[in-house]
């Protein structure tokens, strides 16, 4: 079941095209990663989803309703955590959490207190004196303690310490188990890798890649480390082998996944003693994508 849908959404700020035909679909119960370099358009996409910005063209729907027209209605079942949380400096953290929760109607005090506890948050201080991470906790607690079916998170952990990051990831897993849907924009790729079922990569306002992590990996290369009895002459010439290096009989290279079969057949002829392969991390994928793109652009 589709919970959130972007259909060729375009956004222009004056002459500047921030989003170009962005399409995306989130199914119920999945955690969807949304990554891209600074200024790519992640926050802009999210603000369109929240009904704060009006798309120049295209449609954004959540729960089958129009994200712009029915914003307040949609938000009853929606929770949002921004990367930079700005709150009223002269209210206490506890007051801010209550105010935010109450805006969506009734809420469970018990759940709120439980999350205050889990995030080890001191709700008695004035918001002006909280650190960045503590301000983020305010929004996180308000999100986790509300009865939301969709979580929209824009770099929600950029200020959290590793312990709190763990609490956050734990919370997200519980949310997923409860059958809720999450859109997670983040620069912490290990976090996305750990949590997300599917990922979309955006760059300069365009979605350039999307799919499960496995899908994406297939598009790219494995990191290989091989030791053979005889030196594998001509390995470098084989198609699908890149950046071959030798060090004391150890060969390291990158292999295109779609040529893997030929490469292994070839190596077998030289008597494989040891072979290790590591799948690319999301970070490798990400870097690769940009390196390739920018070299294409430069050419």
């Amino acid at each position, binding site marked *: 079941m589709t919970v959130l849908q972007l259909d060729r959404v375009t956004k222009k700020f004056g002459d500047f095209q921030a989003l170009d035909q962005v399409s995306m679909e989130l199914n119920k119960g999945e955690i969807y990663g949304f990554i891209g370099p600074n200024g790519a358009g992640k926050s802009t996409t999210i*603000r369109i989803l*929240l*009904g*704060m*910005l*009006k798309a120049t063209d295209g449609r954004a729907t959540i729960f089958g309703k129009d994200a712009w027209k029915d*914003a*307040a*209605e949609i*938000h*009853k079942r*929606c*929770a*949002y955590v*921004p990367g*930079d*949380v*700005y*709150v*009223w*400096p*002269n*209210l*206490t953290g*506890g*007051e*801010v*959490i*209550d*105010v*935010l929760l*109450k*805006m*969506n*109607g009734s809420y469970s005090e018990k759940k709120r207190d439980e999350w205050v506890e889990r995030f080890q948050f001191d*709700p*008695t*201080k*004035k918001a*002006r*004196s909280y650190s960045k991470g503590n301000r983020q906790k305010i*929004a996180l607690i308000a999100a986790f303690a509300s009865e939301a079916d969709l979580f*929209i998170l824009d770099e929600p952990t950029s200020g959290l310490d590793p312990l709190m990051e763990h609490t956050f990831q734990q919370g997200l897993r519980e949310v997923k188990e409860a059958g809720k849907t999450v859109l997670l924009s983040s620069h912490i790729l290990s976090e996305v890798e750990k949590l997300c079922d599917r990922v979309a990569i955006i760059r300069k306002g365009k979605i350039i890649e999307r799919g499960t992590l496995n899908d994406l990996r297939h598009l790219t290369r494995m990191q290989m480390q091989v030791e053979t009895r005889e030196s594998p002459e001509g390995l470098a010439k084989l198609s699908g082998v890149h950046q071959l290096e030798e060090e004391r009989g150890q060969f390291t290279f990158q292999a295109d996944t779609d040529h893997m079969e030929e490469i292994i057949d070839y190596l077998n002829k030289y008597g494989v003693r040891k072979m290790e392969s590591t799948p690319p991390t999301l970070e490798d994928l990400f870097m690769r994508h940009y390196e390739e793109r920018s070299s294409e652009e430069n050419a």
Partner: protein
Amino acid sequence: MRKQIKGTRILFPILLRQHRLRLLLWLAGLVLVTCFVAYAYPEMYPDQASREAYSITMENPAMIAMLGIGYEHYQEIGSLFALEMLLFSAIAVAVMNILLMSKLTRDDEENGILELVQSRSVGRLSYLTASFMVMLSVNILFVILLAAAMGSMQIEGFGFTGVVLYSGLLGSFGLLFGTMTAFFAHFVTSSRGTSVLSFAALFFFYLLRAVGDVNVVFLSWISPLGWLSRAYVFVENNVFPIGLLLVSSLGLGTLAFILQSKRDIGDGLLPERAGSVHASAFLKTKVGLVMRLQKTMIFMWTIGILLLNIVFALILGDLEAFFLENEAMQAFLTGEGSVMEQFIILLMGIMALFITAPVIISFLRLRGEEKANRTELVFSRAVSRMQLLKAYLIPSILIAVLLPILQAVALWSAGAAVSEDMMSFSDVLGASMVYIPALLLVLGMAVLFIGWLPRAASLVWLFLVYGFIVIYLGDILELPDWVRSLSIYEHVPVYPSEELSYAALLILCGISVFLLFIGAMGYKRRDIEG
């Protein structure tokens, strides 16, 4: 000491550049208005007879409370000018200095700029020193510009010594309030708190002087505003008030530096209370939230406006006595109705301008919240644009409706206590309430701006400034009727001296509703910045 102010030389030009445009506009405005008015004076009072008439008007307690003590004789035309302009120009200069210094001190500290600068190889007192240098330069520049401009006009009756003293008084008064703001900045943790304290002090000194000048002289000697008129500029040209202003600036400045060297960055000296863990039921409503965020502002303005009314009500008795004694004065009453009635009508006109300020401030907070990225989190909850707009409209409308009523109650009860034939309550109430539609019209303008031109929203203040110029300087500058009619407040019927025109009030209300509606449509359709 050297070490403490290391880097000041680098910071000074940066800070100056940061604020130069705004400061140049302030200086240009102040100098131009002063010169225009000064230029108009000799023509307004061409002969001895008109000056004597003026002196009789100015001896009345209402005028003394508003403008300060007058002069024995009005031989020099400059002295008439000084009586009417010195006090309010000084207040304007103080406002400029308060805004400047609260930005240079607490605001930059609040925004983390001070921390960033302090992390470099820069002395602990450098930022404050550079800020003081900026403030000092501005005031010195102002004195030079004003003295040069007024001096070069060579208006008859404006002796050069007087011109220099007049400019010097304003400059040193500005210096005192800039310094005082830097001093207050140590006590609270926000720039808003800093300017609130400073404005409250300015207001308090004004009231002190008003009471002092009419009745209890020593109070005027406690208030720096009271020192100004003791210079008898253009006649006696006493220099000692400048001395007093400079010495007190020096004292406060020293304290400000001492506190700066003792205090942690980001800290305020007034203790912060530990807050509550849960929000109250009131705070959990949208209007409640908005009211809570504005409570200090609303409270301060309410108290200020009520006090002002009470002070003026207390001199009503003196006012009447004065007019009874001076039969000659009766001839100068131009309008209809009794002295008291005319005075109250004028007072209500001015108070309407004052009440406009909290109405605008309250509603423009919506824009302030957006600029501070705080509406984002609100709109991410189940809150629609119209709901938030409404939550901001309600307090502004309440201010626009309730403050005139409250002030009428304050004015009337204090007046009735000191004067036997105080105007009837319903007349006072009416005189105050006729302005409500005009207040709502300005609010409508603010909504229109927020909806369609949010970046230019502060232009709404021009309605207030213009209204002030028309009321305060309209006669002096002999503004033609059509220029006056550009001010919203000029379209308010004069009550109770004239028949109440409901049509005019209804038209004003109609326009406000229309503006409100159009503005709301814009707010519903536009992108929210943050």
